[in-house]
């Protein structure tokens, strides 16, 4: 059973937690809040975490992160509904037009395509590339087979290629 201290857990899994939450919230500031809350939960749960394997810990962290983000989003939407007029909902990628302009075309296009992709294809891509989870870990976390994960990732890459081409964005093949 692996021995872990909090700093090591944070170092190894902060990306996983952050992007699992970001996938739900699409807002960097909110995601940072949720990430901090999740790691506070980790601090409270060090004894339960201790016997977990790395794969178990990853799955647990992913689930806790998504649930925490969903809770945050639900609370947020209630506040938005009560406090702000319609239209004040969070922006799709948490980036202002100014931010977008500062990014190069390809990056902005990739982000746009990724954000616009059906969640069923986006989720495994984000887990794989951003959270650095393996196909097996993704399959376990999502409760589907490895084959299904691979199929969805292939399909996601294909959608990415098609939409980038449609936008006139080249990528080196």
């Amino acid at each position, binding site marked *: 059973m692996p021995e872990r201290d909090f*700093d090591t857990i944070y170092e190894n899994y*902060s990306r996983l937690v952050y992007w699992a939450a970001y996938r739900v919230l699409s807002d960097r500031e909110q995601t*940072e809040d949720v990430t901090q809350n999740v790691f*506070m939960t980790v601090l409270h749960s060090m004894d339960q975490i201790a016997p977990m394997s790395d794969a178990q810990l990853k799955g647990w962290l992913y689930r806790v992160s998504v649930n925490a983000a969903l809770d945050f989003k639900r609370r947020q939407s209630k506040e938005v509904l009560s406090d702000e007029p319609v239209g004040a909902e969070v922006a799709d990628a948490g980036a202002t037009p100014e931010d977008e302009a500062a990014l190069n075309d390809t990056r902005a296009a990739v982000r746009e395509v990724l954000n616009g992709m059906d969640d069923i294809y986006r989720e495994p891509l984000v887990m794989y590339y951003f959270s650095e989870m393996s196909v097996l870990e993704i399959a*376990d*976390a999502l409760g589907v087979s490895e084959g299904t994960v691979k199929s*969805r990732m*292939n*399909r996601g*890459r294909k959608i990415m290629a098609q939409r980038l081409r449609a936008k006139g964005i080249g990528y080196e093949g």
Partner: protein
Amino acid sequence: MKDNIKELNLENELPPEESAAIDRLLSDFAEAENSEVDYASMLASIKAKARKENISVFPAAGKKRGTARRVLTGVGAAAAVFVVGLAAFAVIRALPFPGMNGKTAAGDIISQSDKVIETEQPSGNNVLPDPGKTNSGEKTGNNDSSSPAEPANTAEPVNSEDVSEILPTMFPVKGGLAGFVKLTRFTAAPSCSAQLVPDLLPEFMELKLGEAGIFASAYGTDENVEYSYSCGVIDEADTELDVGVARFIETNGNCLNYLWRVNEELYLEVNFQGFSREAAEELLLSIALCDLEGLPYTPAPTEEAA
């Protein structure tokens, strides 16, 4: 609901070189995006919060293993006693009856047709088959359907998010799953490392627990018929259900699909292959939690309680 068949039917695969290019593009993009996240600053904030909450993290002083300790306040102690009391109550409710392996909780009967919960006793017009009978026809022991049913209001799952809520609480519905069935509210509490396993799996089915997550699957063949059970999370459900309610959705070949809303945001799609509707629903109703070793799951006591 997503059409899994269509999903897997991928025509025109991306050429390998193009797929590799997209792979590189996404890797670079993820790296660039990650570089804009200030993980160090977040860590500092977390540690500041921890100090405020009297949680000390001390891996640096020689010993590498980190520990979090929480100061037990009077309020915390009282809360711990309450949580343990609730958990104990739920465990008692989930205690096995003779012949059970302990994973199945109470078998209270509640009719929930069109979201109206009745409070009748289980009766002969419950279309569910003998709940103690598996698909293979063997008696395994089961929910205590002979025990008096409790009124619906006392049988409702606890609404708070303490650990007692993750214990299974199942309500076989009078009239089967043609309408709705109240299963359990599952909040995936942070301390939960449990998986969802039907209590009444036939003996010829082999249970497979994943490395992580709440999901499990089972496969087996009997008299040349393949049987399987699996469940997976879906992000969006076309059918709106009350929390804790499951519903039969469709049949794909010999595969039966059920939708189960386990909490406010999470829907599960539960699939049974090879089973009749009656047998599948019997299994569905027997889903209980087990831990990652396949043993009946009991939440660990909190540090305060210990």
